[in-house]
């Protein structure tokens, strides 16, 4: 573990208790460990009930940990000094209806220790940045969900925090808005800001995150670079072959064929599921031996979404077969998602 890491989570555990006598145990986090380095955009992924929001709330001191350790900006998670240097956009946040864009920034800025004069100086620029430049004097009652998200993002950035923790920042935002938010995140990344991003929008995670951690049922399933993750299951190879169809079918093991589509003339686009380099070599030898022309050969890279689904489904299958003591799947309790 690096001492300069912004977030260090080590064997972090959280158990909720439920029921009249609080005897029902729900393990939301079961020994999670990872770290977030300075200047990094770090993605937190996982299905519903994986423990992502619990993780963020523990880092901010909104929820207390049951075991393990967590530090935020070098301080134990939840410490007030640590929170002062963090900007947080909660999922489904609510801004009181008596406020407008300007007064909301004034209010949340004051809570973050920013003087009213500083807020007034910065709010125009910030609102413009999130696309609300014309909406500062409008009551938040009239804001759409996307506008509220943008305002939430503005308040999180207002005090120029070292770390931004964003929980579903593009939730409810239209595609154009999502692109704008992605752009803002990229700009912040370029400025050297660290971002801890929890999002269901895997495409945007893929686009902006340097590293991700995948949580499932309270445990870490994978941690690493996005490239590493998408490369893990990249065993498909797409060939464009030229030859008689009957010859092609004779030369290729049908068990390896993932897809087959004619593309005109005697050419076919064929995806083969090949497990390792030896299988690739073997397949190539057979195609060449049959005198089939190889127009192109492209290894297929999975999207993050595909890699995520593969990983989660594989873990689930393994869990169903082997794990009788697997954690209870959390579908809904408290604020956990």
């Amino acid at each position, binding site marked *: 573990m690096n001492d300069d890491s912004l977030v260090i989570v080590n064997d972090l555990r959280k158990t*909720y208790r439920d029921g009249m006598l609080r005897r029902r145990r729900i393990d939301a986090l079961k020994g999670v460990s990872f770290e977030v380095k300075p200047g990094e955009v770090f993605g937190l992924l996982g299905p519903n009930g994986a423990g992502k929001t619990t993780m963020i*709330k523990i880092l*901010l*001191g*909104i*929820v*207390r940990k049951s075991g393990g350790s967590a530090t935020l900006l070098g301080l134990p998670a939840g410490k*007030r*000094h640590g*929170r*002062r240097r*963090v900007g*947080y956009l*909660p*999922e*489904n*946040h*609510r*801004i*009181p209806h*008596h*406020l407008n864009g300007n*007064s909301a920034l*004034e*209010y*949340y800025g*004051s*809570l*973050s*220790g920013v*003087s009213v004069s500083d807020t007034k100086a910065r709010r125009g620029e910030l609102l413009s940045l999130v696309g609300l430049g014309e909406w500062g004097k409008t009551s938040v009652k009239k804001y759409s969900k996307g506008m509220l998200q943008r305002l*939430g993002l503005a*308040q999180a950035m207002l005090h120029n925090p070292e770390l931004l*923790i964003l929980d579903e920042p593009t939730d409810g935002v239209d595609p154009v808005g999502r692109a704008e938010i992605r752009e803002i995140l990229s700009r912040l990344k370029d400025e050297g800001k660290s971002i801890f991003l929890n999002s269901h929008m895997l495409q945007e995670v893929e686009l902006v995150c340097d590293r991700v951690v995948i949580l499932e049922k309270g445990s870490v399933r994978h941690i690493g670079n996005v490239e590493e993750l998408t490369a893990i299951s990249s065993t498909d190879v797409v060939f464009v072959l030229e030859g008689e169809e009957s010859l092609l079918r004779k030369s290729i093991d049908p068990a390896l064929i993932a897809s087959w589509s004619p593309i005109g003339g005697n050419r076919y686009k064929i995806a083969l599921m090949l497990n390792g380099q030896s299988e690739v070599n073997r397949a190539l030898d057979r195609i060449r031996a049959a005198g089939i022309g190889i127009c192109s050969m492209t290894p297929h890279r999975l999207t993050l979404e595909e890699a995520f689904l593969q990983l989660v489904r594989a873990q689930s299958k393994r869990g169903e077969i082997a794990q009788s003591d697997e954690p209870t799947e959390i579908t809904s309790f*408290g*604020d956990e998602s």
Partner: protein
Amino acid sequence: MKAYLAVIKDSFREALSSRVLWILLILTTLLLLALAPLGIREELASTLHRRDIRAGVEFAQKLSAQGTAAKLTPGRTIWPMLSEDLQSDIEQLNAAQAPSDEDDSPINEFELMSRLISELNALLDRADFYNEEAWKGYSLNDEAAQLQERGIDNLSGKELRRLNRLALQAAYSTDIVKAPNSAGQLVYFGYELGDPLPMDRDQTQQGVKNVLMIVMSFLVGAIGVFVAILVSASIIPQTFEPGSIDLLLSKPLSRSLLFLTKFVGGCAFILLNAAYLIVGLWLYLGLRFDIWSNRLLLCIPVFLFLFSIYYSVSAFAGVVWRNAVVCVVMAILFWAACFVVGTTKGAIESFALNSKRFAVIVPAGDTLLGANKSGDVFQWQPRANGWRQVFQGQQGGHVPFGFAYPMVGPVYDAQADQLVAISSVTPGFPTFGGAGKLAVGKRDEDWRRVTGVTSPHGTQSVLINSDGRILTAGTSGLFRFEGDPTYEHKPWLLFGLDFADKKKVGKFVTIGPAKGQSWSQPFSAGYDAQSDTFAVYSRGKLAVLEHLPEGRFEVAQETETPEDGAALIATTGEKVILAAKSGEVLLFEADTLKQTGSYRPFGKNEPRLISTSPDGRWIAVLFHNRKLSLYDAENNREVDAGLLGQGDISTAAFNEAGQLLAADRFPRVTAYEPGSWEIAEQYEAPSETLELVYRYVVKPIYTVFPKPGELDNVVAYLLLEQKSAAVVGDQEDNLQAERAPIDIWTPIWSNLAFLAVMLGLTCLYIERKDF
């Protein structure tokens, strides 16, 4: 700190964005605008009111007698001016009057008096009402004399009425109360509303404050707080709902301080409303009535405090359940619980227990008697270990719930071994200021009450001198009873007239003060049998009256007192003790009436009773907070005697042996040895079930329960500056009358403790909760 101030600022922003707030502010503005033209114009008092006539029937009879006599008297002038119908009805009343059948009179006295007063008021406008010749034997006061000198033709209508009113009271000084110097005429937009109120400036201001207290308690204390609870109910649940609290808790704030500042901010709504209304009323009172009472402004924090108590319950519910409806329901349930506890205690005290408290202790030689607040007299029965009711009779009976003590006395006449009292003719109506009857009960007749002659008007004290003669003192003077007080008059009726010999009934003869001297309320008299001297206090004047050889009492010394409000007085022969309504006890040398000392044992609490030991050394003053103060007149110092039941003592007296007797509970009388103040004896019957339930269940629950409703006491204290309030109206100048102590500190401490507990519990919950 700035962050928390931002939370409070945001609360004000939220309150100001509330439509309900603006509706209430507009309604308040309309109320203040509607009130603005309402005022009281001070003018010369001239209207005759019903309460100005002490004994209506006797006054009417006097008018009738003078009116039909040949001699030129005021009555001879006034009588012909009355309508014939009224004259005829008064004459009928004269014919029907007899001691035995006054209750069966066919004439409606009330209606007759109303007509008489109405006609007299009309006559006061007439220039020929006052006739110098007719008034020859009566001296007009300086003011009337000055008006008369100016000449009737030169007087304005109001001045003429004033002159006629002064002339009327000069002619019938024993029947008609002196008119106050000024009266208050209610005016609205310059239009006069009703008759002028017989109140001077101070009384008017006091009356306005009384009305104001009711208005504020209702508008702010009840409606305002309820609306504020409804409006503010959603503030805490909204703050703690998911999405909102996450954002707030991610900021560098303390959870508890965040809640507490939100709580303080939640009071913004009531603060804005109450401040607007009360500052408006303050300005209105100042500009219209010249009452610049800064204490009125202190009502703003009091109402804020009242609201915060209910809001603490609402806020706790808001944090736990995050539902505004639950908050309102919990606040209402809390109010209901406080109401039930307070009402249960109040009802048991008022309707069952208070009337059992002793109002008077009567040490009677070897036995002990006491009269409870309902007027029932009891004698201690050592063998039965209980109290037995005695001194029962047909008249001057029981007053339910003890709201007004229906007697003066009783006192023990050692020489005749009898109880003597002035009992009210009409049970339930206080004797003070009205007519009563002499009542006597001899021990050898088992203290059976025998009711005799009518007592002088306004009798406030009944006393026994060293010769065993019955004396009375009141605003109409000092009187001695002549005759046999135990004689029972048995009427012999024929055609409605009583032909029995009434001479044996006896009568009260006046023994003071000298002619030309008169006393007025507030009044109090004390008597020392050994030196045979009276000490009298009358509206700021203190006098010692000595017994002249011819039997009368005349003023030997007179002095002005620092205050002219109500006071109680007692004398030991050497010293005169004056306990002022302000709570200060002043000591004077009886010979010179020079003040020798003063003390203030219980702040501004009003005194209720003074008792002195037979040797004059110990002075016991009981206050309306039910605490008894003891003073050593020999060493000029207050004594801490550690008396039982301080705060619950209802009366006290010294017996012949110098022991102090103090009554508390329902009742318990404790005798203390003088000097050592060790308990010599206790007189208490076994407690009844209700009393036990009250003492061990109701009172402990009440003690620990918050008392938001009792913050009205604080408002009353701030506005009226009184530590107790008269139970029966119109008794403000009578310190002996039952007064409810205004306890301001108990509700403040109890409510503060509750508020601290509720806020503490809520903070603890928030600190431990995972949001």
